[in-house]
């Protein structure tokens, strides 16, 4: 991997983390509990055309959702 490619990878990781943080911030702002994420996740998967496997997407969002719920006041 070239240094430029490594740099791009780090930038993508940083963006993913920033977006996860921003998702948490939004949840912390809203006063009512958001609707269940299951339907939204299935909707997301139906539109998902990338190479990341569906099982992995479910797992990933499951972890994000769980941690956001734990941190949320």
């Amino acid at each position, binding site marked *: 991997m070239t240094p430029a490619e490594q740099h791009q990878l780090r930038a993508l990781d*940083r*963006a993913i983390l920033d977006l996860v943080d*921003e998702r948490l911030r*939004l949840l912390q702002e809203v006063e009512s509990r958001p609707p269940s994420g299951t339907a939204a996740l299935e909707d997301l998967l139906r539109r998902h055309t990338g190479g990341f496997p569906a099982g992995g997407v479910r797992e990933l969002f499951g972890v994000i959702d769980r941690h956001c719920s734990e941190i949320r006041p």
Partner: protein
Amino acid sequence: MIVRFQAGAAEEVVQEVRERLERAGLRVMRSLEPSRPILALAGKLERSLAKELAAHEAIERVDSPPVPDVLLVARGMRELHSVVDVGGVRVGGRGVVVIAGPCSVEGREAVLDVARAVRSAGAHILRGGAFKPRTNPYAFQGFGVEGLRQLKDAGEAVGLPVVSEIMDAADVPAFLEHDIDCLQIGARNMQNFSLLKAVARVNRPVLLKRGLAATVEEWLSAAEYLASGGCEQVMLCERGIRTFEKATRNTLDLTILPLLREWTHLPILVDPAHACGIARLIPALSRASIAAGADGVAVEVHLDPSTARSDGPQALLPGEFASLVADTRVLSGVLGRNLHPAPRAAPGRA
């Protein structure tokens, strides 16, 4: 010139230098920067005195501002970019803000309907014109003071601070009486110097739009009028400039955004609606503005743009506006910033 002292420089030394400069006929102004003393010098600094300052042990350096005699708003006058508090919404810094509302206040119910729509979509500040600078004298001129009242009432009802354009120095008391959180000086009045001086004196947040044919130097000089007149809460707003291109209403000059970041500490907003005049182009231009470093965008929203009394073709529908806010949040996150938190609603308001 901008004289930057060492952090922790003794106050008596700063005062001594200040008096020395004033005796030399310079106008000396002090930065609001709390971390170290910074002085701005207006007038001609003699070479011998410049050398004396550069050699002074309490002085870190002496810089020329990017625009001659544009001092108080120059980047070098602050350690960090400044943040302006508009009724609890902090414009500048890490957060990105979205200002939205009707072009013109068109009546009590109409402005309240738009206020509710933009509030629920995620707007931070409600905009609305009560005094309208129209090209044609027969076009709708706005409801004047009654419009200010309706705008403020709508803002209070939904818990959003409000911004509205002031066109005449004689109207300053009306803006204060109706507690308008931010006074907008429009493109056509950017160089109305008596208006700038009158608005500066009341030290309210000011949104200073760029004139339609103004250079950055002229724009920053107008901001300097506000700052030197006592206004410590100035924000700039790029809204497109007049060019040879006729396909859009104006040409959005995003080129100057990163340059402005280097030249001034003031927060920078972008109004893509007036720049292009075409509603469907606004989402892309908003994203481009945030990507180029804007601290926020100002757009127009109407429940039925076809019946709007001004600028209907550039008004977004509430759903389109909600998508714009969502895009702004995602883009802000990717850029390492974040969408400003929603303002807290006043108790009992909805």
